């Protein structure tokens, strides 16, 4: 019988050994942002250098701290010193850094980004004082970049699985749902449906077999926060999913990830194994009567697979095409079993909400949108990264204060929020608050939290064409208004970009858009008109220049654009199939 007290003490002991032992602890950011910046080569160089010099140190591959612009981020904790974060480390820099700070005692202010923890070092700012850090309230991202995602003990040492222990020993399932309803948490996947209410639907469905589905399909370009959480702190998701299972009396959990994203997949699979090994998953969790099983399900490349009913089709191994509703997932979900679909970010909040109470969470954010927003910022900004800020902060504060604004003295032209279907939000609307209601009134969606910033060199027609090319490529093809409508829209937009538009094209686009919205089963077709509509509303001048004056004000449309289109028929190039019966 695993005893949580013992487990917790053992974890503390192991963490103390790392944090306050006599060996330096070196943490390297190896989420996808780190990988792209060469983190694995840095770790190789680091291990080689430490070996060569005979230095004993603990080297951990951690996840993403969120300061992605500074990757590869190397974080060195020497006994008795604060942690020092070194930015943009390359394999070539490693020998010098080891020589100066590990062999010698020169903290290399010139390479350091910040220090963190007790004490301060001259010439190195504290992490808490960096604008990108000081405005953040990190709840779901609490452990990201701090702990080794492959080590469950580090997660437990940070207070992990205490909420699960509290729930199964002291709370009834209904209490957990009550706490979630009190927190006011709304789903972070895009639809913003209250999580507690959603769980109460599944709780009322007949068991014993019920599914909790954790959606990490995350096909939105510009958003990588779900994958970021799984790569950096997979146990926060697993604990949230188990708690959701306890609250709704569900029996099984499935984490749904797109194949090919090896970081999140590998780390989540390993984390699930570890949770089984310690009795935190499986039969009779922590000695209680509650049992819960989890697995990872991979999907192929399909954007629509992130839609909740298409996701269930994909888990069943079929084409990811949406189902008609009703029946709703709480009654008829994956394999026909009652199911509940949650975004990774939503579930990552759960353990903190259960530990600290729903009221605590409801105290953060705005009236209609409680808690924090987990954003991924990229594009023409100084400091791209993944941040967690309280709801109610304005977009302008996020762009200008937190992530350093647009470099090169340029101005923001528009933001592209909430994935390709979210369309564009012009710079003059940046004073709106991060709030589900406020943003939808402004014609934008917060969606999954991706914000792409475009400066004044960008052309609205060019961007719209790109977004619609994405939507056309990713239409699953089930509903013909979406399948054909997207194709027609991209044809018209390409005409506009080539200055060959016809006078009736504008009206034609509107008609197609209305029909798509009216005749599609899922959000892909229903919102498919949104990218064009938002650009038309905000940048009518850009369209008029292309359509009437036959010119592109920024010149962007003069360059060729390569996008895959209408490629769903690739299979025709395969060898003919020899049919045998």
């Amino acid at each position, binding site marked *: 019988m695993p005893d949580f007290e013992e487990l917790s003490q053992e974890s503390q002991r192991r963490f103390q050994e790392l944090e306050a032992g006599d060996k330096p602890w070196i943490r390297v950011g190896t989420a*996808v*942002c780190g*990988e*792209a*910046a*060469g983190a694995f080569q840095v770790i190789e160089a680091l291990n080689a250098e430490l070996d060569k010099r005979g230095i004993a140190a603990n080297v951990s591959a951690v996840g993403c701290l969120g300061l*992605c612009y500074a*990757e*590869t981020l190397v974080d060195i904790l020497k006994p008795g010193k604060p942690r020092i974060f070194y930015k*943009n480390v*390359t394999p070539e820099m490693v020998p010098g850094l080891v020589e100066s700070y590990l062999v010698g005692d020169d903290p290399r202010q010139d390479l350091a980004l910040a220090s963190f923890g007790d004490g301060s070092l001259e010439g190195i700012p504290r992490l808490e004082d960096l604008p990108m850090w000081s405005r953040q309230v990190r709840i779901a991202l609490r452990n990201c970049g701090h702990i080794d995602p492959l080590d469950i003990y580090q997660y437990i040492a940070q207070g992990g699985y205490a909420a699960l222990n509290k729930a199964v020993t002291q709370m009834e399932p209904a209490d957990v749902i009550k706490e979630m309803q009190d927190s006011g948490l709304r789903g972070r996947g895009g639809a913003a449906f209250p999580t507690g209410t959603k769980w109460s639907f599944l709780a009322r469905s007949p068991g014993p077999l019920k599914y909790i589905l954790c959606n990490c399909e*995350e*096909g939105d*370009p*510009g*958003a*990588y926060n779900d994958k970021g959480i799984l790569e950096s702190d997979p146990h926060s998701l697993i604990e949230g999913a188990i708690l959701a299972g306890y609250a709704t009396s569900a029996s099984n959990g499935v984490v749904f990830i797109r*194949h*090919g994203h*090896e970081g999140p997949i590998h780390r989540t*699979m390993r984390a699930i194994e570890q949770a089984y090994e310690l009795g935190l998953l499986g039969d009779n969790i922590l000695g209680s009567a509650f049992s819960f099983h989890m*697995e*990872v*399900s*991979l*999907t*192929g*490349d399909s954007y629509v697979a992130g839609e909740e009913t298409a996701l269930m089709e994909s*888990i069943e*191994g*079929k*084409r*990811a095409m949406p189902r008609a509703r009703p029946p709703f997932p709480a009654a008829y979900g994956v394999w026909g079993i009652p199911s509940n679909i949650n975004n990774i970010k939503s579930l990552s909040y759960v353990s903190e909400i259960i530990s600290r109470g729903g009221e605590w969470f409801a105290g953060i954010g705005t009236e209609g949108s409680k808690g924090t927003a987990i954003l991924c*910022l*990229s*594009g023409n900004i100084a400091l*791209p990264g993944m941040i967690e800020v309280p709801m109610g902060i304005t977009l302008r504060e996020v762009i200008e204060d937190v992530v350093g604004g647009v470099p090169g003295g340029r101005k923001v032209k528009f933001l592209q929020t909430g994935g*390709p279907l979210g369309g564009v939000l012009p710079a003059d609307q940046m004073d709106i608050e991060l709030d589900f209601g406020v943003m939808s009134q402004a014609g934008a969606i917060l969606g999954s939290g*991706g914000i*792409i910033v*475009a400066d004044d060199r*960008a052309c609205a027609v060019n961007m719209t064409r*790109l*977004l619609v090319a*994405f939507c056309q*490529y990713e239409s699953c093809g089930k509903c013909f208004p979406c399948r054909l409508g997207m194709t027609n829209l991209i044809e018209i937009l390409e005409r506009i970009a080539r200055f060959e538009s016809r006078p009736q094209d504008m009206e034609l686009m509107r008609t197609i858009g209305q029909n798509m919205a009216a005749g599609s089963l899922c959000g892909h077709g229903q919102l498919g008109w949104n990218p064009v509509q938002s650009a038309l509303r905000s940048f009518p001048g850009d369209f008029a220049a292309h359509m009437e004056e036959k010119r592109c004000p920024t010149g962007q449309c003069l*360059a060729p*654009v*390569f*996008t895959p289109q209408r490629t*769903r028929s*690739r*299979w025709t*190039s*395969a*060898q003919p*199939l*020899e*049919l*045998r019966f």
Partner: protein
Amino acid sequence: MTTNQDDQTQKIGEALANQSARTVTVLSSLLAIEDAIGYIPPRAIEQVAAYTDSTINDVWGVASFYTNFRFTPPGEHTVEVCWGPTCHLLGAQEILQAALQALGLSEEGDTPDGKISLKYNTCLGACSQGPVISVDHKIIGPQALGGLKGDAMVQRIIEIISQLKTGASNA
């Protein structure tokens, strides 16, 4: 010839039997085969149908739906260029244009010598590091190329691709 085919049949059989998915489906089987041999040959369709108790039609339906599956052997190296909105704003189209030119292609596909498969990718997930490419499933951004920008970055990427094309294969 026959032995090659038998070999492949056996490899596919092993991939099916050893797949990591706990719940075996048509999709999980196809993904396992693609991981093992890089593409879905026609006989794999039949083997998946038999293994999962589905029809050949069902399996074709799934295989032709997900855009990651290909039905001919891939080139020795796979180069993916992200064309998502972030990478687009940061210069993805210049990379694509230069890469297509360097490989003598007019759109995504395989070079005639079978060395390189070029793919457009809708989002590699490393938006903060854009513009990114992936070479044999390893993601590379400007930071890993020494912080190069603009034309110099495109030039460096073309060098990498050209090296793949001429260089000895990583057998």
